[in-house]
């Protein structure tokens, strides 16, 4: 899979970091960054939940 963050959409809710802390973190500016762009299960499943819950729909995941 390929995980990306749209920095213009991200509102710094930190949901992704809470849901999948091994995959996402927040930078100094409070905007999310991807730690593990090609996560595999079970991290991939958590990343998908973060994608669904992201309040600004800033996460996109391309399944390979």
């Amino acid at each position, binding site marked *: 899979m390929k995980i990306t963050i749209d920095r213009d959409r991200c509102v710094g809710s930190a949901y992704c*970091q809470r*849901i999948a802390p091994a995959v996402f973190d927040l930078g100094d500016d409070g905007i999310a960054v991807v730690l593990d762009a090609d996560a595999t299960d079970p991290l991939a499943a958590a990343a998908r939940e973060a994608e669904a819950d992201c309040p600004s729909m800033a996460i996109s995941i391309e399944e390979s």
Partner: protein
Amino acid sequence: MTAPLADLVRVEDTSFYDDRQFDVYNRMRTEAPAYHYEPLDVFLLTRMDDVRYISTHPERFSNASGLTLNQLRMANAGASAAFERFNEPDGELVITKDPPRQRALRALMSGNLTPRYLLGFQDALDGFCRDLLDRTGDGAPFDFVDSIAAQLPLYVAAALMGVFEVDIPRMKSWVAALEDLTKVTSAADLEEPGQRFDELKRFLRDQLELKRRTPGHDMISSFLASSLDGSPAPDAIVLAHVATLMSNGGTTRLLLSSMAGLLAGHPDQMDLIRADPGLLDGVIEECLRLMPPARGFVRTATADVKLAGVPVRAGQRVYMLYPAANRDPGHFTSPDSFEPGRRQAYGHASFGFGTHFCLGAGLARMEAKALFTELISRYRSIRLAGTPTRYEHVQLNGWATLPVTLHR
């Protein structure tokens, strides 16, 4: 014989918001998911998908022409000008703007509310929680709202703003004034909270001068050092946003007291959290989902659009009902039951979605976590010591009083 929806949907009446509201939402979601509420010419949205769609399409649904039902009621009464009088002439507010301007103002605010920035206040926050519980924890009944839930956000706001705790009683009256401004429906009722709001602005102007002379490690100083459009942020904008930060005191009070009420009703949760403090996060989210501190916000359609198959004309309003979206069975299984740690726990609407997502969400969660971590480390249970009273407010949701006792 079931009553027609028009007889049941009384969203401007505070008595509508008791436990019976949820049956009405269930009917609205299936019978009329974009329900036209004629008295204010506003469409009420009860499905999560519609709330998400509206929130994440600010180009189609604007924040600039009213956010609360009472503002629409005031506009109907021709009293909008009276309302406007209390706003600073150049005090653009992030929540009343649309992108791209909204993004610039949001960046000004959010830089001072990042999790990393807030972490610097964690020790102070933990200290406030200990102090407040020291004062109430002798086993005697007390009002959780007045003694704890209302106090903590004010102490936190004072620490963040770098103002003295001696100002807290006045800050309390200003938070109440800000809440009243989202409640009044006539120009006459606006006068008294409006005067208190003016008082708040005078106080903040003085603080701005103080911080300009002697900057500290606080949010007002950071705002003053921030730039907007390449120059220092204008005072009117800083002032408007610091006032917004203080209004967080109101919604966080509602969250904290709703949490206490929920834990009083679910004593098993106290034991579970004590055994695994990590569970507290899920309890906070579930409380936010079941009892959203803000019941909803208005948007204005910028062009003709269809919502749930219903045509909405440009200029017409929509109102997103968060308590309804949060119990949409299409999104949450057994939506009325309290199930901390459920799947998609963060999928609730209570902080909004998209570009206007609540700037204070991280702060509110941090306060809830700190307070209940400390409380649960000291006490086995919270018990009701009387009948709680609901806060009488159309837009805001929670307890006005919550008499409790704490037990070791």
